[in-house]
């Protein structure tokens, strides 16, 4: 009977209806789920890849080096599944299959592009570098001050309480430095510097009369315990997944909190193919997914949709949504969807040797390094390019892999290698990339992935400003090392393909005007107010600090706003 069918459909719809849907389970998706569930919303979190459980699925994490058949090296067979990761330093035996299968999910490189993807629960929150720095108003003001692209619709004061909120929950270690360009946060105890790092930092301070700062890195590793998590054990094997929960990941931190509310449902193997847009209400009704295992299509419904699929995939979802209204997708009315891709350009810097300190060493493996805070184009400094860069590096003693020139083989050679070698220090710069409209991604409908879905085509490259900056990044590293007594200095510039900084961002930027931006100041899509994009896609400029902490703060802020708006009946 027709009535029965209707009844079944209604029941099915009810079973598929939630207050909010979160697309993605990585760093920002986990935060969206935590905040929304804690505020009482029933949340469906969709993950395109497999489930990946805390501790249980960290299969390599307690192995010793010799327990790995290839002692850490990926095999040719594994590299075949990961031809993109094979071009990077991420191709390591323990974690090779934490990365997405590049063959199943290809993309088109109009210009060379390294896309480091992790398609499993937790996303790149398992694999991330954990460096956690606040932005300052030098960053939020930058576009406006330089007259470049568009102004950020927010300032530091808008985000500052949310940085507090995030840092208190995830645990960030660091030292208080009182630097306007790198605001202090709510810190756990700072990690130690090595003896050489301490002295180099002091010499830089002296040489540059207090205008340059080498500080201990700020990282999301616990240097003191937090409820439900054990503090960092200094194994430095974070990216295999930490059985102690010693660093922030979805698994160790946001998922347990969201799950404890009883309001969270996680559905793995769910590739969101589009947001279902309702022309009448001008809002999203839910999402359509393709089940990655059975290839069936399902629909889920909600009042709010959070898009946290990672910067490029979030843009991909939008491009495939509401195409009957906007051929180029939801959020494309500005002409900016998929444009303005940024990253941090790196892989250039300096290294050298340090005389002396033969009577000094260290204990433990620190999952962190030192950080040289941005100094270019600040406080009266003026360069022939815009913006700036920071350095990340460290000093340590050489191990067995050093070359012992005077000894070639035999007992003497072996005995020499059982002792630590000389001290060396190195650092690589992370530079800001400007938003360029012509740096973009588009849909390549001529190529399909394993599931028959169109793939992305990458068309982005470094421009003059970044290339000029790179020269300075190298020469300043050399100058700072020379001034602090480092010898045998080598500089390098290995070039940078966009994406290789693993900080891709900007494809659905925030702004003040729907004509020039995809999102408003609350991360709402201008064209669908109940759709929020809070991963790297939302960024209006890139600064030079590692961005994840800012994504978390923006997500928590937007989630709070979305619930308020829902209560007011505005969305």
């Amino acid at each position, binding site marked *: 009977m027709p009535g029965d069918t209707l009844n079944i459909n209604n029941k099915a719809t009810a079973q598929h209806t939630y207050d909010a849907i979160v697309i993605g389970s990585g760093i920002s998706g986990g935060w969206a789920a935590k905040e929304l569930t804690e505020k009482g919303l029933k949340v469906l979190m969709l993950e395109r890849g497999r489930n990946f459980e805390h501790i249980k699925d960290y299969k390599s994490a307690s192995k010793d080096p*010799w327990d790995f058949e290839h002692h*850490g090296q990926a095999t040719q067979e594994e590299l075949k599944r990961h031809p993109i990761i094979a071009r990077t330093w991420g191709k390591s035996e323990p974690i090779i299959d934490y990365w997405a299968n590049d063959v199943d999910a290809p993309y088109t490189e109009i210009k060379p592009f390294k896309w480091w993807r992790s398609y499993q629960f937790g996303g790149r929150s398992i694999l991330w570098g954990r460096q956690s720095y606040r932005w300052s108003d030098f960053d939020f003001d930058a576009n406006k001050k330089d007259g470049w692209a568009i102004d950020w619709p927010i300032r530091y004061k808008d985000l500052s309480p949310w940085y507090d909120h995030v840092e208190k929950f995830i645990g960030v270690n660091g030292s208080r430095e009182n630097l306007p360009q790198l605001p202090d946060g709510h810190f756990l105890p700072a990690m130690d510097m090595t003896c050489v790092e*301490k002295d180099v930092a002091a010499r830089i301070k002296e040489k540059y009369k207090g205008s340059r700062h080498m500080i201990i890195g700020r990282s999301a590793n616990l240097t003191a315990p937090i409820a439900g998590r054990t503090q960092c054990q200094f194994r430095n094997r974070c*990216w295999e997944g930490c059985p102690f929960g010693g660093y922030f990941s979805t698994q160790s931190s946001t998922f347990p909190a969201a799950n404890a509310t009883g309001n969270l449902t996680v559905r793995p193997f769910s590739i969101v193919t589009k947001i279902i847009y309702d022309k009448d209400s001008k809002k999203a009704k839910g999402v359509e997914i393709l089940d990655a295992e059975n290839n069936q299509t399902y629909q889920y419904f909600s009042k709010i949709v959070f898009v946290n699929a990672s910067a490029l995939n979030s843009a991909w979802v939008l491009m495939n949504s509401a195409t009957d209204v906007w051929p180029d997708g939801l959020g494309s009315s500005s002409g900016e969807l998929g444009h303005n891709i940024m990253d941090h350009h790196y*892989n250039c810097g300096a290294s050298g040797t340090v005389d002396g300190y033969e009577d*000094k*060493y*260290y204990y433990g493996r620190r999952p962190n390094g030192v950080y040289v805070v941005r100094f270019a184009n600040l406080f009266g400094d003026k360069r022939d390019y815009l913006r700036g860069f920071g350095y*990340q590096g460290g000093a340590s003693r050489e191990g067995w892999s050093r070359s012992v020139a005077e000894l*070639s083989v035999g007992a003497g050679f072996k005995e020499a290698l059982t002792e630590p070698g000389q001290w060396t220090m190195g650092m690589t710069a992370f530079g800001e990339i400007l938003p360029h409209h012509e740096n973009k991604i588009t849909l390549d409908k001529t190529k399909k992935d394993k599931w028959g879905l169109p793939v992305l085509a990458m068309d982005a490259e470094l421009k003059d400003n970044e290339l000029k900056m790179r020269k300075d990044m190298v020469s300043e590293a050399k100058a700072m090392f020379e001034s602090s007594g480092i010898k045998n200095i080598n500089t390098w510039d290995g070039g940078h393909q966009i994406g290789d900084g693993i900080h891709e961002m900007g494809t659905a930027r925030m702004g003040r005007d729907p004509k020039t931006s995809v999102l408003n100041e609350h991360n709402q899509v201008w064209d669908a107010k109940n759709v929020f994009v809070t991963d790297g896609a939302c960024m209006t400029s890139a600064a030079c600090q590692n961005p994840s902490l800012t994504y978390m703060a923006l997500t928590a802020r937007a989630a709070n706003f979305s619930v308020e708006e829902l209560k007011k009946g505005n969305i």
Partner: protein
Amino acid sequence: MNRREALSSVALLLGGTIIGADIFLSGCKSDVKISSALDFSPENIAFLDEVGETILPTTAGSPGAKAAQIGQFMKTIVTDCYEEKDQKIFAEGIGKLNAASKTKYDKVFMELGADQKHDLLVAIDKEAKDYQKTKKPEGPNHYFTLMKQLTLWGYFTSKPGATQALRYVAVPGRYEGCIPYKKGDKAWAT
């Protein structure tokens, strides 16, 4: 591992990258090719054990590379992780090393005395270093560079190498950045 280490330690390994690690796959090959020249017979494994033991012999404080089953390790890595061109160089290296032995001592490597083995590998090591220094980056590697690299890497990441020749602490539990070191203390394995 993090970016800093990826950039420093890997690049420092014997003055270059780990061979087999920096493969640049431009597309997806239909299958992985294994060189037909590879021969890991028990005799060849024993030969590689002996080469490894000569590079890193048993000493007062720790066992040598043979105790780390270095021949078997070379077989695993060369078979699974090497590109075909390096597999071929490695396979031909066994014959070349024996030829060098015959030229110098009129005996194959396995028949040499310990001092002769040592002296032969010192000479070949010098030849390999000189060759690697002058070759083009994309040019073929010297077979002995591969054997020596596999020996060092395999041994110092093996249980006897990491725990007896070096110091290994699986779970340090804390970090101290600046502590005293006295000559003779072993280096950390990781």
